[in-house]
């Protein structure tokens, strides 16, 4: 029997469709693996084992009755805890929402259910998606499956670790400044931030509304494309949702597997997003990947985006400003925590302040205070207003670059996974880590991270970031699938097949034919 947890979502979908395996078997295999490894890893905040098996059983019954279901029907999926689920707690990694079960599903979650996917549970994240390491989760960090002393990236470290550790074939993430792409890079998995407005945010607990975007997390580019097709498209419940018709991302990914798919593609290397400050092994794998692309017929040129240097500064004004407004909803009245002040009169204002003190962690407080400052009378133009102007300049840099090239590439992150605690004491050091991913969010364009090797000095995964013009998400999938095929042919294996085994007992058992 094949090890079901090692299969891609696409392959599982094939086996489910032809009746080789049942969704209950596939779901149980993943739940067993979660039970074996997640005590250490802590990718999940909530595992819905019974509900998942019951849903799987219903999907099996529909198939048995002869119903033709979608390509991912019966395939398990993990859901980032930022998304509202009517049958599971939705905390966004915060104590202020501990145990909260929303009365409705996020649109993307509803679409998963409609396509008969099997929600396994909710994945860990930095509180309200503020962070690059999951160290800011109120429920403790997630560990990187490649090295458990290191961060899995953030904010969506739980979703990335879950797919990298074979706890789920695919997952949902959200990306405000890199929260899908950077965790993908440091865990050797794939993550896509769609075009702003390409995927509904209805039911996604808001961080910064002009930047947030929901997207797929997976082990292969094709799986990300299949999931994108399920969750994408217009949603009347999200006023920022684009009404454009979208091509099939799965078809776009399949097109990338054709011979000569890379021939003549114009690739721009962003001068400002590699070089100084980037780890040697990251630079080395990036240079090698560019050489492979050139050998496969891609035209590589360097492009300059001079204003990217201001992107982190702009982002850390815009994000806190929007977050300070969005998080005003946590007021102890309608849902979430209520905490009374320890002394003095119990008025609603004092209860609100006591609740927000008790319910928010240090990074959330830091960003709310920063955002409140940036929006204050007398400072608004100098900070928030200036940051919005930088946003225009960054869009212009992208426009100029995309006049010359089809796609832009850079390393997905300046370094491989860093150790827990390494950047915790210095907020600016943590923020600067987002330099590669932030520009795409500021401009609203789509971006993907896929594995491009292991850094020689530490043996940890390195990610390639690919960016396309707004609404050209399909181009990312075609190119991403082509690059993935090129690299895996070159290596002779997938990157994740090199990851250390997490459950030695399980491994011995399967080697001895017990499982």
């Amino acid at each position, binding site marked *: 029997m094949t090890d079901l947890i090692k299969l891609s979502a696409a392959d599982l979908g094939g086996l489910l469709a032809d009746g080789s395996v049942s969704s209950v078997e596939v779901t149980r295999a993943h739940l067993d693996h979660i039970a074996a490894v997640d005590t250490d890893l802590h990718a999940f905040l909530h595992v819905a084992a019974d509900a998942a098996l019951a849903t799987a059983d219903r999907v099996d019954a529909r198939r048995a009755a002869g119903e033709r279901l979608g390509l991912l029907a019966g395939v398990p999926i993990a859901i980032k805890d930022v998304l509202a689920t009517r049958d599971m707690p939705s905390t966004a990694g915060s104590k202020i929402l501990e145990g909260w079960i929303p009365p409705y599903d996020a649109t993307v979650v509803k679409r998963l259910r409609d396509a008969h996917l099997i929600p396994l549970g909710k994945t860990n994240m930095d509180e309200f998606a503020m962070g690059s390491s999951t160290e800011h989760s109120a429920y403790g960090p997630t560990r990187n499956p490649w090295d458990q002393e290191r961060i899995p990236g953030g904010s969506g470290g739980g979703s990335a670790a879950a797919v990298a550790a074979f706890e789920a074939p695919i997952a949902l993430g959200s990306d405000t400044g890199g929260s899908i792409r950077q965790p993908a890079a440091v865990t050797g998995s794939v993550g896509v931030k769609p075009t702003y407005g390409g995927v509904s945010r209805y039911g996604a607990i808001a961080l910064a509304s002009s930047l947030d975007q929901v997207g797929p997390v997976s082990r292969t580019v094709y799986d990300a494309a299949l999931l994108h097709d399920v969750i994408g498209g217009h949603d009347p419940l999200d006023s*920022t949702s684009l009404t454009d018709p979208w091509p099939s991302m799965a078809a776009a990914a399949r097109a990338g597997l054709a011979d000569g798919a890379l021939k003549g593609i114009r690739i721009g290397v962003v001068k400002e997003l590699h070089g100084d400050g980037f780890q040697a092994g990251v630079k080395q794998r990036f240079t090698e990947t560019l050489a492979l692309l050139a050998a496969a017929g891609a035209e590589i040129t360097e492009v300059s985006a001079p204003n990217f240097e201001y992107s982190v500064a702009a982002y850390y004004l815009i994000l806190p400003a929007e977050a300070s407004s969005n998080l005003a909803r946590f007021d102890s*009245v309608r849902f979430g925590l209520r905490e009374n002040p320890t002394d003095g009169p119990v*008025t609603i204002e004092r209860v609100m302040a006591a609740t927000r003190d008790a319910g928010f962690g240090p990074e959330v407080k830091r960003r709310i*205070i920063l955002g409140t400052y940036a929006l204050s009378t007398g400072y608004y133009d100098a900070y928030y207003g200036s940051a919005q*102007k930088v946003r225009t300049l960054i869009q212009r840099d992208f426009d100029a670059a995309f006049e010359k090239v089809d796609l832009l590439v850079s390393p997905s992150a300046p370094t491989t996974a860093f150790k827990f605690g390494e950047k915790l004491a210095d907020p*600016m050091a943590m*923020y600067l880590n987002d330099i590669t991913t932030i520009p795409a969010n500021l401009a609203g364009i789509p971006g993907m991270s896929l594995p491009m090797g292991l850094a020689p000095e530490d043996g940890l995964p390195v990610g390639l970031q690919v960016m396309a013009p707004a609404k050209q998400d399909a181009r990312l999938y075609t190119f991403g699938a082509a690059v993935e095929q090129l690299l895996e042919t070159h290596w002779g294996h997938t990157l994740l097949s090199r990851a250390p085994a997490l459950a030695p007992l399980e491994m011995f058992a399967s080697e001895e034919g017990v499982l």
Partner: protein
Amino acid sequence: MSGITAEQVAHLASLARIDLSPEEIASLTIDLGQIVESVKKVQEVATPDVPATSHPMPLTNVFRDDVVVPSLTVEQALSGAPDRDGDKFRVPPILEED
């Protein structure tokens, strides 16, 4: 330095309705000073001729038809409330008694 004072941080905390401890105010004063010093770099290129962008994909007048659609029931809306009184959210007094 950007000259962020503890008094300013305490004022911001009261605007943001977060009951910060003196220790939190002290450490946030340092953090905020450093972050503001770093992010004010945006002013170098934010010249008057550059228009501001508030939204990456500008959309205007996103309306739907003015028809009644299903919404949350009272029970659903109150399902996460910390306290309730019948069909209403129950809150502490708004005004302090003298």
